[in-house]
């Protein structure tokens, strides 16, 4: 068995120089993470005149906000599962290719680019391809298929498709190292002991890959959960997901003075992400132990 993490942790004295080295990192996280989080949390409990209130929190029970939270969670979960399953299959396929070969290098670099492809450009790419005047729509119309309609702009169809588009390559990138960690010797060992392919996956490959798989899926979940620009470019009506609802509270020129309800919604997102991150941390610890890294 692997040693428990605590015994591996260094107990030696840390030189001052090392602390100085991480100072820029602390400054960075303070400015871009800690302070904004603080502003959000404090703002969530203040009214328009900066007096403490619980009104913003109770506003979260409004049906359109509840439904936006549900939509966001479902959308993130569905695209995380789709992305994880297809991405994992793709990662396995790529891992069987020759190491350092052209196919493998091409796939990983292509996925590196596609995983970061998002926002207005991605939304536009889809509109120009399968939108009502998209080239694929026109081309398919010529061969008798009708793609037309407004499905691309609906959260349960268009957003699922577009989000999955960047989730799959991200899954490949984060999951490939785990698949590569499967040693051929384990399989040979299983076979020489008379195990079938099923036995191998059931008792060796599966259990080893399960924690990184679920971990990657949680990462995909937060990736989709926090995405804003792609959805904003694609969906202009009804703000069906929570990042769009928050955007609405900040930019509306019709309904004013709801910035702090936006902060309360943002705090709700922080809570959900915190739960997911905790799960991720627990899994990460187990994975590390199992793989003996």
């Amino acid at each position, binding site marked *: 068995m692997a040693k428990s993490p605590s015994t591996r942790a260094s107990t030696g004295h840390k030189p001052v120089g090392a602390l100085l080295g991480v100072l820029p990192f602390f400054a960075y996280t303070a400015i871009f993470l800690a302070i904004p989080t603080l502003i959000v949390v404090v703002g969530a409990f203040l009214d328009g005149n900066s007096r403490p209130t619980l009104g913003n929190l109770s506003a979260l029970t*409004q*049906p*359109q906000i509840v*439904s*936006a939270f549900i939509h966001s969670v479902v959308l993130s979960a569905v695209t995380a599962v789709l992305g994880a399953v297809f991405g994992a299959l793709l990662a396995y396929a790529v891992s069987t290719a020759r190491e350092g070969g052209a196919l493998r290098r091409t796939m990983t670099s292509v996925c590196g680019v596609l995983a970061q492809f998002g*926002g*207005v450009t991605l939304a536009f790419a889809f*509109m120009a391809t399968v*939108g*009502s*005047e998209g080239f694929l729509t026109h081309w398919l119309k010529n061969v008798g298929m009708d793609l*037309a*309609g*407004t499905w691309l*702009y*609906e959260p349960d169809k268009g957003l699922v498709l577009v989000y999955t588009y960047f989730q799959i390559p991200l899954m490949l990138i984060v999951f490939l190292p785990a698949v590569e960690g499967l040693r051929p010797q384990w399989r040979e060992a299983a076979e020489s002991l008379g195990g079938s392919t099923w036995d191998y996956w059931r008792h060796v490959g599966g259990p080893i890959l399960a924690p990184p798989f679920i971990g990657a899926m949680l990462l995909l979940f937060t990736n989709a959960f926090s995405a804003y*620009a792609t959805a*904003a*470019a694609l*969906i*202009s*009506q*009804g*703000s*069906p997901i929570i990042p769009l609802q928050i*955007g*609405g509270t900040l*930019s*509306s*020129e*019709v*309904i*004013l*003075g709801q910035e702090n309800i936006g902060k309360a919604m943002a705090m709700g997102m922080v809570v959900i992400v915190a739960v997911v991150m905790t799960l991720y941390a627990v899994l990460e610890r187990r994975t590390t132990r199992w793989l003996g890294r």
Partner: protein
Amino acid sequence: MKTRMARSGVAALAAVTLISIAACSPPAKSTDTSSAGGVKASTATSATDLGGMAALVDAAKKEGTLNVIALPPDWANYGEIIKGFQAKYGLKVNSAQPDASSADEIAAAKNLKGQSKAPDVFDLGAAVANANTAMFTPYKVATFNDIPAQLKDATGLGVSDYGGYMSIGYDAGKVPAPKTVADLLKPAYKGKVALNGDPTKAGSAFSGVVMAALNQGGTADDISKGVDFFASLKKAGNFLPVDPTGATIESGQTPVVFDWDYLNVAQGKKLTGKMNWKTVVPAGAVVGGYYVQAISKDAPHPAAARLWEEYLYSDEGQNLFLKGGARPVREAAMVTAGTIDKAAHDALPKAVGTPVFLTKAQNDKANGYLTANWAKAIG
């Protein structure tokens, strides 16, 4: 444009950078000039207070500069208006963040308070103007009496300058001409009808829903029929949830668009020769929306700000708005006086029926209803 809600992170970043750069600019020089009458420009509530128009022009010329914000050159003809003002009075106009929103204007005034780069004047959507009157200082232009009472604050603390009526713009080469809002439920408009923005966020989309309500037998007090209309439009598969822009119209993605008539008319002009983009104001459902002009109480150039107001509400300024397809607030008085640019006035889309302007109470009620029901209706 002012109603565009989706703003990229880059733009936001640029705005932040602008503000932080501006924050380093030197504090405003004391340009406040006392006039012959002994009244400071910063507290003058009319040109007469300063000793007449000539004295105001002198004081403004001494300041030399005017800071405006959020005035896109292609919006209601502001490009030409700024040029006209500069040419006539020899003042320099600093036009900051032309694509900013009404809310951004207020934010800039707060962030730059006391600095020479702070905006002198605002051009705001009615809702934002109503919520921020504490930022304004009252001023009555020489033509103040020409402005309809429901379109101005009686003390001159925020006065409408130009506006328009809600309209339906459509590509006449692609869809039949709609006569009423209800026509849009027909199969000929399948997947083709777009609203300029989300009505809980954008003023133009909000007024589009009010227009639909009026056409469906609703009133300014009860817009639920407008929301119901969009729900049936969605059910019929005709509602296209795309935020229309000049680009989506030109590429044919949004063949029918609910938007202000001056924006639809401007779009038609731009597309002359490429597309037959027409604008119709549905009969009996005329919803007016006017922008509000106000002077910042912290204006670094108080005399120039007042001169700008005089220019905007002069026959010349009002006709320039009209040339851009917007309806100047002094329209009725200028028609009576015969000073209106007749050709430009005749080119406006015909509106049959009394224009409806929502009061603050009606606005609040409609907003509450939309917040609770819009997402459900089109979800």
